[in-house]
């Protein structure tokens, strides 16, 4: 039975719609101008290209989700990855769809504005405050600039705001509804996404966890709720806020590694096993090698230390100088070095000390953990040797040489014990690529090691190899992996040389698990250090608060049109002011409450505290850690913290209006003042628009007029 009439009632918050439209307009219009590489696009762009070509890379600056989002935009626009991102300001060819490259970050940046509006409402402040916050964000030049290019901050801010918004929705929803767990799931997912975009998302995530655990703690203290219900709720929160983000984080890597299946420029940083799992590159060489190293095997040994550079154990027909420059003596035996390029001199033969032959017997006798071997250099037939002579560059360690008998009562000490450090995971047998082996000198129990220092000219600037007592050596970088491997078949030196020069063949296939790859990649990302030097536009965190600094993003190749990351100075001032005001107010209230004066009713006080936790807390966690960092920092690192302050300002104003000012006159004055401030925010937004959109071009005098601070670098073209 149908009840007529059939009615649909829809409520639309027109203000919200209006704000959204305005925000989309400010962020999205003329997105493909300038049609040139802008600032860090040059950095992210190369990764986008590599995604398009499915070539493996490591970026230590952050997890892969952010790059993948950018790559998604490029993929949708049909970008084929064929563009050399070599300098800022290079023109894009017409084959590159600039609009789609920049669309996703711009969209995220635009959606931040309505999100802030909704977030203010969820913090239980009025629509007017919400509008204020949205306008501050809408008219912030630095956020607009940062959104309009292929950069990640806007995406990060979007996910962080979404996480807080959905958490507050969850928290404010009546506890009876199961629907609210949908919000919690969304919260967990956006936390995972935020961390996946940039590690900086971790700061906000930790804050959110703090707030959530505080709420949970109150829940535990609530004796009206049954034990069972408390347990269930705790478990739900634990799953959504802790397990889900971690799973998602791993998932991003899963997608990342599945996409990037080809070898590329960063292969060298990874272990041989990892490299072999990539198509092309090492796997092409190692395909078809015998798996187990046997007596008589011909191998190249790669150091597992990736610092300073990946290299192979190497020797050549040159001896250590009798005396070094500083007067110390050497053994004058053949040099053993580490060489970062493929070379025929990298081949070594594994020999059984008890037998003469250097071919693999049939069946091959594999080398196991604990076996004692000799290593013979393929081209010169010298034995790998070490003795109690100080190494050339690291005198605290032993020299390693290819043994030459000079009849000076210096006996050969060329026995090495094979110590497979990952034998629990792999096996007792020495395997190509998979096994990580430490070579321990039998006579002195020192371990073969890359010292990381380059030799001077007499050593052809190759890297020094030493043997160091095990307990002295840094345990991290002692391993060696067999990379190229074949079973030697010739006993005669001449034949062997020919054999060594010939390429290897035969087929085997190797795989390592996703977890091993994930852990290795994660570890490398956290430990690979780039040389951090100061950048022309880098700045220190304390300069951000007062915006002493700016970043020139782009300058037109012939005119004065330029784009700068400069914030809206008026909004910036408002933000700082409200930060200060909140702290003063909070101290004032706290002291008064402690003395028993309840200035605010309970509900209002809770609201005030919640505001502080989210906004001031958010500012703190996104700002203070930078003070301790030794990285190169830029103004855009401050933007997430700034967004929290914009959230704070109107809410604080509303609080003052309703609870602090008693007389109507003051309240009116405050309103007038607020609208005046808003007007000046708009005006200063208009003033800086040319530097935000790079359009229209300004004359040098106008530019000079925009240089509100002496420390800003604004570029003038000399005519």
């Amino acid at each position: 039975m149908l009840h007529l009439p059939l009615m649909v009632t829809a409520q639309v918050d027109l203000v919200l719609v209006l704000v959204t439209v305005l925000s989309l307009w400010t962020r999205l219009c003329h997105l493909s101008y300038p049609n040139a590489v802008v600032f860090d696009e040059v950095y992210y762009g190369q990764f986008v290209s590599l995604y398009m070509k499915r070539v493996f890379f490591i970026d230590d600056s952050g997890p892969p989700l952010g790059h993948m989002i950018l790559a998604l935009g490029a993929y949708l626009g049909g970008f084929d990855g064929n563009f050399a991102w070599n300098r800022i300001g290079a023109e894009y060819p017409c084959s590159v769809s600039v609009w789609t490259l920049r669309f996703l970050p711009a969209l995220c940046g635009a959606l931040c504005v309505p999100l802030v509006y909704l977030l203010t409402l969820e913090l239980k402040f009025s629509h007017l405050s919400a509008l204020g916050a949205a306008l501050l964000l809408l008219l912030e030049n630095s956020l607009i600039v940062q959104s309009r290019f292929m950069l990640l901050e806007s995406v990060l801010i979007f996910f962080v705001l979404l996480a807080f918004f959905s958490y507050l929705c969850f928290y404010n929803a009546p506890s009876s509804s199961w629907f609210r767990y949908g919000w919690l799931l969304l919260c967990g997912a956006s936390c995972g996404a935020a961390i996946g975009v940039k590690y900086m998302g971790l700061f906000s995530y930790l804050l959110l966890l703090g707030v959530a655990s505080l709420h949970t703690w109150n829940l535990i203290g609530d004796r009206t709720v049954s034990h069972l219900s408390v347990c269930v709720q705790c478990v739900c929160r634990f799953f959504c806020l802790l397990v889900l983000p971690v799973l998602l984080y791993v998932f991003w890597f899963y997608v990342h590694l599945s996409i990037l299946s080809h070898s590329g420029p960063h292969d060298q940083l990874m272990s041989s096993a990892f490299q072999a799992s990539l198509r092309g590159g090492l796997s092409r060489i190692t395909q078809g090698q015998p798996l187990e190293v046997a007596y008589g095997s011909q191998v190249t040994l790669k150091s597992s230390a990736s610092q300073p550079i990946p290299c192979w154990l190497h020797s050549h027909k040159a001896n250590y100088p009798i005396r070094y420059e500083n007067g110390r003596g050497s053994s004058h035996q053949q040099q053993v070095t580490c060489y970062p390029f493929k070379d025929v001199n990298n081949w070594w033969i594994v020999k059984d000390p008890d037998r003469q032959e250097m071919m693999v017997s049939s069946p091959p006798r594999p080398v196991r953990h604990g076996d004692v071997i000799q290593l013979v250099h393929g081209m010169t037939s010298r034995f790998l040797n070490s003795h109690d002579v100080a190494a050339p560059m690291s005198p605290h360690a032993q020299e390693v040489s290819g043994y030459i008998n000079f009849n000076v009562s210096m006996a050969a000490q060329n026995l090495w014990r094979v110590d497979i450090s990952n034998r629990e995971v792999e096996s007792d047998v020495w395997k190509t690529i998979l096994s990580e082996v430490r070579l321990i000198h039998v006579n002195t129990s020192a371990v073969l090691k890359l010292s990381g220092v380059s030799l001077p000219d007499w050593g052809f600037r190759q890297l020094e190899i030493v043997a160091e007592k095990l307990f002295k050596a840094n345990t991290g970088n002692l391993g060696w992996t067999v990379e190229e491997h074949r079973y030697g078949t010739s006993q005669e030196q001449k034949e062997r040389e020919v054999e060594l020069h010939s390429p290897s063949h035969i087929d085997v296939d190797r795989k390592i698990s996703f977890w091993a790859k994930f852990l290795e990649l994660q570890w490398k990302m956290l430990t690979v250090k780039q040389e951090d030097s100061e950048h022309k536009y880098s700045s220190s965190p304390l300069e951000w608060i007062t915006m002493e600094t700016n970043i020139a993003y782009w300058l037109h190749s012939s005119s004065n049109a330029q784009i700068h990351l400069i914030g809206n100075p008026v909004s910036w001032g408002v933000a700082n002011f409200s930060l200060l005001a909140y702290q003063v107010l909070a101290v004032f209230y706290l002291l008064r409450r402690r003395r028993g004066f309840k200035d605010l009713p309970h509900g209002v006080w809770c609201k005030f505290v919640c505001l502080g936790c989210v906004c001031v807390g958010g500012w703190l966690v996104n700002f203070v850690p930078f003070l301790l960092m030794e990285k190169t920092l830029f103004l855009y690192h401050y933007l997430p913290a700034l967004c929290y302050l914009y959230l704070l300002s109107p809410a604080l104003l509303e609080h003052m209006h309703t609870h602090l000012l008693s007389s109507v006159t003051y309240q009116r004055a405050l309103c007038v003042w607020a609208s005046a401030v808003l007007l000046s925010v708009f005006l200063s937004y208009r003033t800086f628009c040319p530097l935000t959109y790079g359009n229209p071009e300004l004359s040098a005098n106008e530019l000079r007029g925009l240089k509100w601070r002496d420390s800003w670098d604004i570029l003038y073209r000399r005519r």
Partner: protein
Amino acid sequence: MEDYKKQWNTPGDTSTLRKRKNLSENTPLSKDPGRWTQDDPGSSNGTLAECHGSDSNNPPATLLLLLVVASLSFSTRFHRLSEPSHVCWDETHFGKMGSYYINRSFFFDVHPPLGKMLIGLAGYLTGYDGTFPFVKPGDKYEDHNYVGMRGFCAVLGSFLPIFAYLIVLELSQSSTAALITAAVLIFDTGCITISQYILLDPILMFFILAAVLCMVKFNHLTQRSFSASWWFWLVMTGASLTGALGVKFVGLFVILLVGLNTISDLWRLLGDLSLSMVDIAKHLVARVVGLIILPLFLYVTIFAIHFVVLNKSGPGDGFFSSAFQSRLIGNNLHNASMPEYLAYGSTITVKNLRIAGGYLHSHWHLYPEGVGAKQQQVTAYLHKDYNNVWRVHKQDHNESQSGPPDLVRHGDIIRLEHKETTRNLHSHLHEAPLTKKHFQVTGYGMNGTGDLNDLWQLEVCGGKKGDLVKVLRSKVRFLHRATGCVLYSSGKTLPKWGWEQVEVTCSPYLKETPSSQWNIEDHINPKLPNISLSLLKPHFLEILLESHIVMIRGNSGLKPKDNEMNSKPWHWPINYQGLRFSGVNETEYRVYLLGNPVLWWMNLASLGLYLIMSAVASVALQRGFSLEPKRKEHAHVLLRGGGLLLLGWLLHYAPFYTMGRVLYYHHYFPAMLFSSMLTGITLDVLFRSADLLLRPPYSDWLQRAGLMGLLFTVLYSFYLFHPLSYGMTGPLAHEPGSSMAGLKWMDSWEF
């Protein structure tokens, strides 16, 4: 339901197995709450339930225990104190600095002076004459009297277990907990070793624990505010804080601990509505005086004594400004004289005005490839050096050869020629090596012939055109003519190619800061009369500030070297690797600083246990389970006392993760003290909760058995590892004949 609730009430109850037992056995327990208090006096450890709140329970027994602790502590520290009779490890630094005090020659160290002053004093009093050179570890003392200094450190080191005992007793009101702590510290080989040598650490730790002890005593006197003993402990806290900070900057962490404690105390007082605002103000003022003003005064006094005592020129002169050096007898600046106004043709040195800024310096080395133009380096250098000398020229080359030289005036355009290499001070539009916003400064030209980029306009700060430039007193700036930038010292240290000297740039930002201001220091011009300048003697506070900046820079300059194995903070709690104090080879007398691994791992385990127990306890409290008074007491001890100690541990450990300087194993020892105290409290509460598992008579047995087992473990492990502290000779541990054979449980241990 009642039973169900009961088994939730158990702080420290972690395994489900135990819970199951509880259900069956625990029921009779709750019927007789009086039993424990009855049993307690019988068992040697229990004093808790009735006695909390009273200062001392059963004084003779406590005193006896204290005496036992003290005698054990002193005897373990003084055993074989004079062995080995050669310089061990950092004795080479601190012993040497003690000697400097005795000889009154000025030196520089990255730590504040109190520790070394005390060592010097101890040496002086025990008849050491300051003549031993302390050149390198391993040097034989022969007939020099070094035992006094070692003895002094050992005495302070011996107080550590005693203080820890008292602190734990105060926090937990349980002598068992206190005894566990004391036993751990007395028999820890690491604590013994580090107390036996001429080092700053025993002194530092003495003051740290003294401060904590005084603070805890003070906390306990809340009922008797403003009484004599209240004031006494307050003042003693402040004094100990000074001591800690005066020895090493690590003392800041204990200051932070006391500060946080004081803030929470004040917060509590503020919430006490029975106190008037006047009372609260009094409390506040008392703490400001006792914990801020007094320590500050004492700290400044220490430095005053330091500067008064060290009045002769010594190895530390070069780190300080010339004005400072002029104070030191024997320094070449002592009572110096020079021409008063800067003139053309003079040779000068130019010093940057930022605090502890260097001299403008250049040398034959060029900037390396890729760093701006490949011209000669110009840096700022902190030491006196002939390469700091520059010659002032007019912009054109014709200088009047005869007659009195022209004086340099404000606004003049000059050229600075480096005397040694005859290159001109030069700048151009290349990025500076480190501060990329600035321009590079180089040495350019030959024999004073360069180009237009060598011209600098000299300005006296606050001067007007025509003003003369006073040597030493005028602040001057050098403006580069061609680019309009100003000569600037960024304070950043150049990498190896720049010999780790300080970067000099030309800054386009013209704001006046000390970094861009310079003064003329040495001034030699034979054509002008020398005037004896009673140099502006620096104000004491300036010296204080300067020495602090120099110390901080020295500290952050201790970067790990490439080849050196450096210790990471995560190594420390797991006792990953120790420090070799003395001896390497089989024939030598070897001492190895390594904590007793059994005890250290026990500390680590207790830390985890503490977290679990306190989590259970606080959830139980928050959830409002009805707990027996005894359990409430336990929870209270865990959360309050344990919380304080945990905070102490965190404050003394976590900051090392953010430090860029080189770290050593012994940095963990202050944190280890807190960790040991926490162990005492945790294990004590754990043993006392034995009755959750068994019924009363058996639970007491279990408790006692646990304690005996613990004591046995401590003693046996000490027996095993005591050669680490008291010295080993003979073969190394990996060989079968060694006294430590089979005890090398971790590959990373080097004995």
